[in-house]
């Protein structure tokens, strides 16, 4: 193992948006799987169980920590959606040029934040 030739550049790299978007894709996916799905099932279960159970859910959801979780989940959703669509494009073999790749990495993160703000603005004000 030790004598196997290794790339001398494995530890030499510079941070870039493409790395951030890739890491965020995994973090937001895991976050939604481990937190979002229990919240979704709680919501559906409370609706099925009746008004009292739903009132309990609403009480927690409308608290400050409930809002932090829900806003966080919605951001995770939109971020995962945007970087997921980016993956669909990359899987077709497109968008690998350095400047294009960088631009869409940054844009997918920015668009996700805009969509999150827009979603809550629509829920509260429309």
């Amino acid at each position: 193992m030790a004598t196997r030739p290794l790339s001398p550049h494995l530890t030499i790299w510079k941070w870039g948006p493409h790395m951030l978007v890739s890491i965020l894709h995994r973090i937001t996916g895991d976050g939604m799987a481990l937190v979002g799905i229990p919240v979704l099932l709680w919501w559906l279960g409370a609706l099925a169980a009746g008004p009292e159970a739903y009132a309990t859910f609403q009480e927690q959801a409308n608290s400050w920590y409930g809002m932090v979780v829900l806003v966080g989940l919605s951001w995770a959703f939109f971020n995962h959606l945007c970087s997921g669509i980016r993956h669909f494009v990359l899987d077709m073999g497109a968008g690998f040029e350095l400047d294009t790749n960088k631009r869409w990495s940054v844009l997918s993160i920015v668009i996700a934040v805009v969509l999150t703000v827009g979603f809550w603005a629509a829920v509260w004000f429309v």
Partner: protein
Amino acid sequence: MGNGTRLGKVRGLGSARHGSGEWMRQHVLAAGNMLCSIFLAVSIIALPDLGYETVTAWLAKPFPATVAVLFVVTTLWHARLGLQVVIEDYVHVESNKFALLLVMDLLAATGATYGVISVIQLVTHQDTLTQEDVQQQLGQMMQQMQQMQMMGVPGGAPGGVQ
């Protein structure tokens, strides 16, 4: 693994031969998730409020309920495949990996079943008639029965009006 022969040492270390199928399923499920979640998000924005009556009346309708069931199933499945990749990336002890994947399968199957059952319960328990509707209909029936009795129709009120 083998008994130390050169072939025995590498046997079983190759591709499991169903990775590309799982990769493709993950992508198809992602497309399904996207359609379902956009429908649900737009619907939630369009609802006048998120109170119990409003949400149950909406979710008990056939189409929203169908989308909700599809959303629960595709999301749990997609999440299960996604977590599998993470586990395979970071857990290298075979026994731990096997146990984690098994627990994840059980949790995903239980979660999906719970979500689907909840939606079905919403659909079947949702009373489409309000109490006022029921009272109005009862009142009309009573009136009709009284009219029939006045006209002398025999058996106009079977069993009698109590």
